[in-house]
């Protein structure tokens, strides 16, 4: 059946809770009768079947992640949820100092299988509700980070995350949850997929080539993946063949997939909705430089947000987010580079 990202996530949570009685959800507004199933409807209605395992919390992010951490250590499989990814920052001690480090500092004696779900994306809400926070967490060993751009991947990655014995942080994009009904909002993008009935997972750590090409490799996640696909379409008409890679997992990133592609194309652009400074593009760029620099026929290029907070003004916001046109024009520049 065809499901939106929000519906696919809901299906994954439902299936996992059905499969394993240790799985439970914890977060703000997730299971209030007459409420909205979390800020983006993902958990809507789940309380009807799993009242005891849908834990509504006070507005207490330290509490949410701390409780999830403790429960996970004792054998539960919590899915902890924040309304906006920005609120993860309230719980940084629990996420970075506790969840990510407890296994290591115990000498590998304990497991902390927490799933953390966080909506991101620059979406008309100003600086404190519109951040793309991936880089903040990419510098933290001990957690795995996934970022599904389609409903199929959202469902498969969430199942994989729940079954994974390590902490997994899932970034979801606010404009990809759905484009209809309650999820209708400016810029909302249809990322729905046909979801098979049978159980499947999308393995953590495996990227995917969304569109094969030979002239340049474009790496992009979440909404930027969709923008890159649109850009590739336009560029194709102009005779430029783009290979679009969706890493799906940001850490551990499927670097071999990217390196193999760059060996073939000799060029790469990384598209990021987060500020350019110290982002995932920087990491990928240096890895290419360290390992396959001889294959490059043009400099590694980043197409990212400026090094500022997300502005509110729709005019500025449009400049802030890498738009399809910016991707197209930057790729052309890379193609025109002469040694």
């Amino acid at each position, binding site marked *: 059946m065809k499901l939106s990202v929000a519906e696919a996530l809901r299906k994954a949570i439902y299936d996992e809770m059905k499969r394993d009685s*240790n799985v*439970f959800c914890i977060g703000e507004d997730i299971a209030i009768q007459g409420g909205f199933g979390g800020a983006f409807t993902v958990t809507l209605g789940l309380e009807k079947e799993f009242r*005891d*395992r849908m*834990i509504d*919390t*006070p507005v*207490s*992010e*330290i*509490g949410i*992640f*701390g*409780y*999830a*951490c*403790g*429960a*996970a*250590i*004792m*054998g*539960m499989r*919590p899915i902890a949820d924040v309304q906006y990814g920005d609120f993860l920052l309230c719980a940084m*001690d*629990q996420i970075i*100092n*506790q969840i990510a480090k*407890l*296994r*290591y*500092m*115990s*000498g*590998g*004696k*304990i*497991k902390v*299988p927490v799933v953390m779900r966080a909506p991101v994306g620059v979406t008309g809400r100003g600086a404190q509700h519109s951040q793309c926070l991936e880089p903040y967490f990419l510098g933290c*060993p*001990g957690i*795995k980070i996934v970022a599904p751009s389609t409903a199929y991947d959202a469902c498969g990655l969430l199942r994989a995350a729940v079954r*994974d*014995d*390590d902490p997994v942080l899932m970034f979801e994009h606010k404009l990809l949850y759905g484009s209809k009904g309650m999820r209708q909002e400016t810029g909302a993008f249809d990322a729905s997929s046909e979801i098979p009935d049978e159980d499947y997972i999308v393995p953590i*750590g495996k990227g995917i080539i969304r569109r094969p090409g030979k002239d340049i490799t474009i790496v992009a996640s979440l909404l930027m993946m969709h923008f890159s696909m649109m850009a590739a379409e336009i560029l194709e008409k102009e005779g430029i063949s783009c290979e679009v890679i969706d890493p799906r997992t940001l*850490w*551990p*990133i499927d*670097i071999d997939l990217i390196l193999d592609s760059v060996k073939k194309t000799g060029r790469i652009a990384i598209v990021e909705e987060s500020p350019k400074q110290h982002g995932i593009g920087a990491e990928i760029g240096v890895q290419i430089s360290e390992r396959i620099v001889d294959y490059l026929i043009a400099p590694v290029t980043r197409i990212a947000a400026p090094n500022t907070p997300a502005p509110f003004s729709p005019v500025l916001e449009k400049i802030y987010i890498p738009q399809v046109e910016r991707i197209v024009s930057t790729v052309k520049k890379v193609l025109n580079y002469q040694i």
Partner: protein
Amino acid sequence: MMSEIKMPQLGQTSDEIRLIKWIVKEGQEVKRGQALCEVETDKVTMELESVESGIITKLIAQPDSQIKTGEVIAIVENSMKAMSANREKNAEGKNVVSSKHTNDSEFLNIDDRKVPSIEQIPINTTVKTELKFKKNALNKNEKFTKSTPEKGISNKNILETTKVFILTTKEKKKILDEIGTQKAVQMYMKMTLIRSFEERIKLLFLEGKMPGTIHQYIGQEACAVGVCSALEQNDIIASTHRPHGHAIARGIPINEIMAELYGKTTGCCKGKGGSMHIGDLSKGMLPAIAIVGGNIPIVGGMAMAFKLKNQSRVAISFFGEGATNEGAFHEGLNMAAVYNIPAVFVCENNSYAASTPASLTIKIQNIAERACAYGMRGDIGDGMDVLNVYQHAKKAIDIARSGQGPSLLELKTFRLCGHSRRDPCNYMSKEEREYWKGKDPITLYEGFLLSESVLDKDFLSKIKNNIELEIDKAIEFGQNSPDPKPEDIFKDLYVDMEVPR
């Protein structure tokens, strides 16, 4: 054999230390841990303790001179023969000390009528209100319903108000009957083990033989032992940056603790944790959480898991009064109360968050009063009396286990040592330190057990000797255990994947 006593590294920055004056003389016999001289760094003035036992044969460093780290300052004669003779003499000495105390009625008679009663101490209104308030709370055994006046707490008030909670000898006897002598002696041994362990590793640090830093538990032994003695095997505790006492009380083998302090693979965290992360979940203790207040929501989550899984287990969070000013405390306790989970939040109120007195940061008298803000049961115990702690902890744990919800249990206690290594505690008044030294939980409990004939002096000295030997073995085990291999750095992070390089 002659040993050189060298100037240790004091603090992170200073390698120039001024020797103010010698406290000992040439020809004098000193014991390990005894103050040798007064020294001054750019930050503090402190007494330098001897890292050797023996006879001072030469004082090399001159008073009022600058000494460099590592420079030899004195020579001590301490041949193995002399050492063992010294040890035997020590053991005998302990007997002598005990028999001296037997004749000292004041030592054995720990009936609290001997302690100045609350009436004898000038009481300000805060204390009076506290008394009235406390009486109500304790009689009903339940929730605090109102808070005391807003006046800040002075240390003196803390000292005075704690008298309110002191058990009478009769009450102590009742608890002793309940727990039985075997358990009572075990509790004593645990407390003594903690104390000796801490005293010994303090010296190892000062000698520079142990890496890292330490936060010690000297003075608070009754808290960890009292609470852990009331637990069942499947219960879980979580500790702080000051975890040695909790770990020993919970039964983590001291070999594994010692090896962890040395960063060895045989340590309870394979050398990946260190002093501030001692613990072993399989033995009922989460690796200690060294972020102040950090363990509180985690313990809440563990208790939530017990409830979701319908298990008859209790989770205990230990923390200091400083942690109750953290957001994690507020969020963690509020959620615990809302979810009615089987947790006990044990606040060891030792009056100081590092060097900052609680009176500067907390406007209420008792931390336990904070429970009422969450609709949670609050209670206060005497953290210098292991039987008192046991009684209060047992009650809170029973309540939690029976599904009646969490408690905030405040234990009034005191750190009879520095916050971390080499802290000379210059922020504490002499009067205050003396007062609390007089309430040393081990001395008091020992006196009680002797007076009740649970222990005799022979047995006592045997216990102490055995503990020293056990610690000797643990030190040897720690020192001789293998270091991790370089490639171990990549192990133990993820369950099912290699660390990407």
